[in-house]
């Protein structure tokens, strides 16, 4: 094998390699210096056709005078090995030193002495630097020289010609692409026509410069295919810092206890709510644990219905006011408690907030414009009040349809310790808790009750729980005593637009998690977490991590990443207003037109009609590909066909010998 690969031409008499290594290293230093000299004189009056001619003539004549030793060295194995070694080293350096940084960033990164030194060597952008290109030119020169010296165009040396010449051809293709090529970007929306593109610099960053196209590229349609979102439970071990989950479980699998990574830590999925919300229900409890409660459905002329619970003996919560009739319905358990209200009470906004799963809700009375800290670093600002909430979808603004408190809503700005803020609306007619994420990512629930300004009521209807009676007071005087209606379908009393749904002597409100629909609108998972022998129930809002135990593992309810299956642009090429070509561009399937290639490059999640298209012009592409093919054929054939041909020839040679 060894002897087959060796020919007399290739065997050199100089087995010492270090002089060549030193020589190539010297040339590299000269290239670095030359680069700086060129930078210094470039553009000055010193550089003109005369001076270039003179320098070229001197270099060429010196080179011609020493052509024999120079070419001997260029075609030597020592030189090629040394040169390949230096290119190898430069390439490796280019992966260790950050490339393409701004000069300032680069110095900041590498310090005031190392930074400028590396910059002086061109190491901050090694692959586009003068010395590196010089080495590649030298490689081409050496390959060319060895092809000539070996007279590699002879049929017997074709494979040698192919693999050595192939490299020259690839570098030539690269050179043509470098000087004749362009790269840029088109940001386009559905329906728009691009007639130019923005030029990129060599690191892919956009410049100010644009290049006109001599045709128009119209984006007819942009489509993104998403995979069906797969909701799963993930465990991240934060201290590992890899950003990779250590456990992933499908919802089905997660219903079994799953180890979370640290000893004694595990979790189990109890329930999933695709469209999570909390429903308030009245639950009867033993005496002493609750209060007398009446669940009432009230409605107005326009048919707006709301279900409310009022509690006897609790201020603000014991009554409903019907502004249309200036009538107050107030709930007492026994008649002896009745105390008719005669003074006017101002408008009040009461917010209750609590972490889901925790028992206690805290009531606070707020005013518009007020900022309140509601614990655990969460701050809430009441930004607006809409008595009759409406939403303008075009302006993306809330407004009030009227001044009547038909659909009272409070606008809040909630700021979390992480710095994120969230705008949300609370609706008095939908007193069920509105959920959001809490400071640690757990669900934070709000409820809102609105008490309109209550003039000294003309009329107060007292609902007496123990005797099931209604006492009608007008201007403070008892005028009528009525029994409660028979069923929940009947109106309580004339002028009181409400029906009594439930009356309980001792009750408590209970929030039960529900899913409002099957759609994955506001997914939440109810999970049991066990750590250190304690089992705790937690509601996980989507994408909001919750700590599992003291070791810092996080449990996250989220969809599987990489949800984009494909994205593509349907485009039309227009020339003089006429359609000349239509195509679909997708990743891995560019469009070639007019000397350019158009690549599907970007999409924006928040801007679904946007398509980012990369534009590349590379006139050297065909040449480079020819080089690739030549090189591969050359390598394979020189390894496997040449020895085979030699073996075929060998017996003949033996007989002739």
């Amino acid at each position, binding site marked *: *094998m*060894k002897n087959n*690969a*060796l020919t007399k031409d290739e*065997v*050199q*008499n100089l*087995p010492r*390699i270090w002089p060549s290594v030193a020589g190539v290293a010297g040339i590299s230093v000269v290239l670095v210096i030359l680069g700086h000299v060129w930078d210094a004189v470039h553009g000055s009056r010193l550089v003109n056709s005369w001076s270039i001619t003179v320098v070229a003539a001197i270099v060429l004549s010196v080179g011609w005078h020493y052509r024999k030793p120079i070419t001997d060295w260029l075609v030597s*194995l*020592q030189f*090629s*090995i040394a040169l*390949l*070694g230096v*290119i*190898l080293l430069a*390439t*490796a350096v*280019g*992966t260790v*030193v*950050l*490339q393409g940084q701004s000069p300032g960033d680069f110095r900041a990164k590498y310090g005031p002495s190392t930074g400028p030194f590396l910059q002086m060597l061109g190491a901050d952008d090694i*692959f586009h630097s003068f010395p590196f290109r010089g080495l590649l030119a030298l490689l081409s020169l050496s390959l060319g020289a060895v092809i000539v010296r070996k007279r590699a165009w002879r049929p017997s040396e074709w494979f040698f010609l192919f693999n050595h010449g192939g490299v020259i051809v690839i570098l030539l293709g*690269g050179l043509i692409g470098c000087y004749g090529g362009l*790269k840029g970007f088109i940001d386009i929306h559905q329906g728009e026509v691009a007639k130019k593109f923005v030029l990129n610099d060599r690191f892919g960053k956009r410049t100010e410069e644009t290049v006109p196209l001599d045709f128009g590229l119209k984006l007819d349609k942009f489509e993104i295919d998403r*995979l069906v979102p797969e909701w*799963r439970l*993930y465990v991240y071990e934060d201290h590992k810092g*890899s950003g*990779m*989950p250590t*456990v*992933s*479980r499908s919802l089905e*699998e997660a219903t079994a206890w799953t180890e979370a990574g640290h000893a004694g830590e595990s979790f189990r999925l109890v329930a999933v709510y695709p469209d999570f919300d909390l429903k308030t229900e009245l639950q009867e409890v033993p005496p002493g644990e609750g209060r007398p409660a009446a669940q009432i459905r009230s409605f107005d002329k326009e048919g707006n219905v709301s279900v409310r619970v009022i509690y006897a003996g609790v201020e603000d919560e014991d009554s409903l006011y019907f502004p249309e009739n200036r009538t107050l319905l107030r709930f007492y358990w026994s008649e002896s408690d009745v105390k008719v209200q005669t003074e006017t009470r101002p408008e009040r906004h009461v917010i209750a907030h609590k972490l889901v799963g925790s028992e206690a809700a805290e009531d606070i009375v707020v005013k518009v414009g007020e900022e309140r800290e509601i614990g655990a670093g969460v701050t809430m600002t009441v930004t607006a009040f809409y008595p009759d909430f409406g939403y303008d979808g075009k302006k993306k603004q809330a407004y009030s349809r009227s001044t009547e408190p038909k659909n009272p809503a409070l606008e809040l700005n909630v700021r979390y310790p992480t710095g994120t803020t969230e705008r949300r609306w609370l609706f008095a007619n939908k007193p069920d808790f509105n959920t959001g994420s809490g400071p640690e990512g757990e669900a934070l629930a709000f409820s809102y009750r609105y008490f309109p300004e209550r003039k000294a009521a003309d009329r107060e209807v007292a609902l007496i729980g123990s005797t099931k009676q209604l006492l009608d007071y007008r201007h403070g005087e008892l005028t009528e005593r009525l029994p409660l209606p028979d069923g929940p379908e009947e109106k309580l009393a004339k002028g009181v637009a409400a029906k009594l749904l439930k009356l309980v002597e001792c009750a408590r409100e209970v929030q039960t998690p529900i899913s409002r629909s099957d759609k994955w609108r506001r997914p939440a998972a109810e999970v049991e977490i066990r750590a250190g022998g304690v089992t705790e129930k937690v509601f996980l809002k989507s994408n909001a991590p919750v700590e599992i135990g003291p070791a810092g593992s996080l449990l996250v309810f989220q969809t*599987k*990443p*990489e949800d*984009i*299956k*494909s994205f593509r642009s349907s485009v039309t090429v227009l020339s003089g207003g006429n359609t000349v070509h239509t195509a679909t561009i*997708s*990743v*891995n*399937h*560019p469009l070639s037109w007019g000397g350019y290639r158009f*690549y599907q490059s970007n999409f924006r999640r928040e801007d679904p009609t946007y398509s980012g298209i*990369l534009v590349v012009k590379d006139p050297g*592409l065909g040449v*480079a*590909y020819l080089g*690739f093919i030549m*090189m*591969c054929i050359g*390598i*394979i054939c020189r*390894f*496997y066909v040449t020895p085979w041909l030699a073996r075929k020839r060998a017996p003949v040679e033996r007989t002739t010998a």
Partner: protein
Amino acid sequence: MSLSHSVREESLIAAVIATHAVAIVLWAIGTLSRRKPLVTASAWTFGAAFSLNVLLMGDRWVEAGRAPFKTLYETLLLYPLCVGAATLVLLGLHRLRVLIPFSSGICIFGLAWALAKPDVEIVNLPPALQSAWFVPHVVTYFIAYATLFASCVLAVLALAKPSWRSEETGQGFEDGANLAVKFGFATLSLGVVMGAMWGKEAWGDYWSWDPKENWALVSWLAYLIYLHIRLMRGWSGRRSMAVCVVSFAAVVFTYLGMSLLPTAQDSVHVYSQP
């Protein structure tokens, strides 16, 4: 990935590891006691381990619904498969049975690593990887990596026992190493070129000085230097074998070292784990 699949995969990996371990034991006993049938049995056991590895890969391919070459974990299953194939070819063509313990060893290493750090789920293939080039590019590269591993082992053996000759073929370790380098270099070249052509289709450039590309170039250049050193009188023996060993270090770094590089943040080639 379902739990049942990950359990099955774990047992399959364990089975491949166990079979490779048996091959090593058989080889060691056979070689030390000079019992040829045992060494032959070791080769067959190695073949069985390879077959199980094929099954393992096929199972994951079916489960994933795509070629399982995306993550580090998946390549840790692919690499032993390619080492198996390369070793079997070298066994068949050149009777290099000495490779068995080393190849089995590296397979056990890769698979044990995979067992220790399994993917928690099967990740979806991003659009750029959904290409006809994906399978040929990766497989060609891994065959190259596997063959070059064999060349490295043989080069180390050549440095240790330069005068050893096979009774069957009359060749020494150096010849074997050289054979393996040639095949490895040819596949490496094909892999680079395929990668370049894929890069052109996917990102618009056949070469973008990406750290992985650069290290592929570094390993390619290292073997190119080896090939030229082989032609130099007085350098073809020990020196070339040393270069062969060092060159494989570049391959290992190209495969596994990318995340250590400061420039790797923007690379499209750094193995992701789900």
